[in-house]
């Protein structure tokens, strides 16, 4: 029974992989003044990847509670975080290693 469930489960997960193959990519930079861009819009129900380049000379952590990612980026380093599909609404991301370095994602139909 368990094995059968596991088998079904893995087939199911394999089948769902192609849906995530095409991700909407976004470029983001962290400078001493904060994120650029500070806010951007995205369509709903799309898998998303956000690339961040850290131009400061301090370690930063790109984090979002509602988009469920949390990743460290070393100075001059580059990271990619993954999220979505998102429902319409506002989402917040921030640098966890600084105070008040925040960005907003607006998810709405174009």
């Amino acid at each position: 029974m368990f094995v059968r469930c596991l088998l079904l489960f893995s087939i199911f997960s394999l089948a769902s992989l192609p849906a995530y193959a095409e991700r909407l990519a976004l470029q983001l930079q962290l400078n001493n003044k904060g994120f650029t861009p500070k806010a951007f819009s995205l369509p709903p129900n799309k898998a998303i990847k956000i690339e961040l380049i850290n131009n400061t000379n301090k370690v930063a952590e790109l984090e979002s509670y509602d988009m469920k990612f949390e990743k460290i980026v070393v100075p001059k380093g580059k990271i990619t975080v993954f999220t979505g599909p998102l429902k319409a609404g506002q989402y917040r991301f921030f640098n966890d290693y600084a105070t008040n370095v925040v960005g907003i994602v607006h998810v709405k139909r174009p």
Partner: protein
Amino acid sequence: MLAVLLIVFREVLEAGLVISIIAAACKGITIRLQVCTGIALGLFGALLLAKFTSLIEAALSGYGQEIFNAGILAIAALMLAWQNIWMSAKGREMAERSKENIKGLLLDGKGSFAIVIVIAIAVLREGSEVVLFLYSLFLSSGLTENSMLLGGLLGTALGAFVTYSLYRGIVMIPLRYIFSSSNLILSLIAAGLSSQAVGILANIGFLPQLGSQVWNSSFLLSNNSWAGVLAHSVIGYTATPMGLQILTWCAVLCVISLTTQRLKQSHKQNKDTLDATH
């Protein structure tokens, strides 16, 4: 400096909270050595991890860090489950031996090696972040203006102190009431770790999400609040869980409690038949 102190303090506290609760839930078996070994191993691992963070990030076509994190979370969950089951088996063994032997049995905590790994992983996760953060402060602030670094170090010390007080506090509360079911507490932590692990894998598309946001309980307990962050690191709370996270959470909880329950029951039956023959 104060901001830095707070950031580091929070990271240390997050790991410390998990350690305190696990240590308190395992009270009754001597695990001081295991806890210390775990912390030392975790710190060593954190240093290594901090050094290779960008390497891990680059590995496996950008999914390296996610797979690594999910992997260590899953290991921690497995170890907790093992510890849980081991403890109920130990309880059975204890009942079968005479009173004099029990003391010796409790002192040799060999079976609880799993605790070493769980604690090492808790320290590893938050520790590597603290190490990286402090290291970059050290580099960027230089030797002349290092009040930031001082703040970081103070934060670490304060976090360790609060963690220890917390542990003493939890231990002092009459254990009978709060930790009467340490099984449940350890299972909750294991369930939380597993749901975080599958959440990470589902985010990168390695597992189906089964609904990206099944509900939104931010109005009850927001992930942005202090309580929300603590609930996240202890029982894996998230305000907008994926279907897969909910399923995993429940499944892990069920499997662990059923297994330990069954072990206890079979022990009781054994005892009953033993009594009947006498």
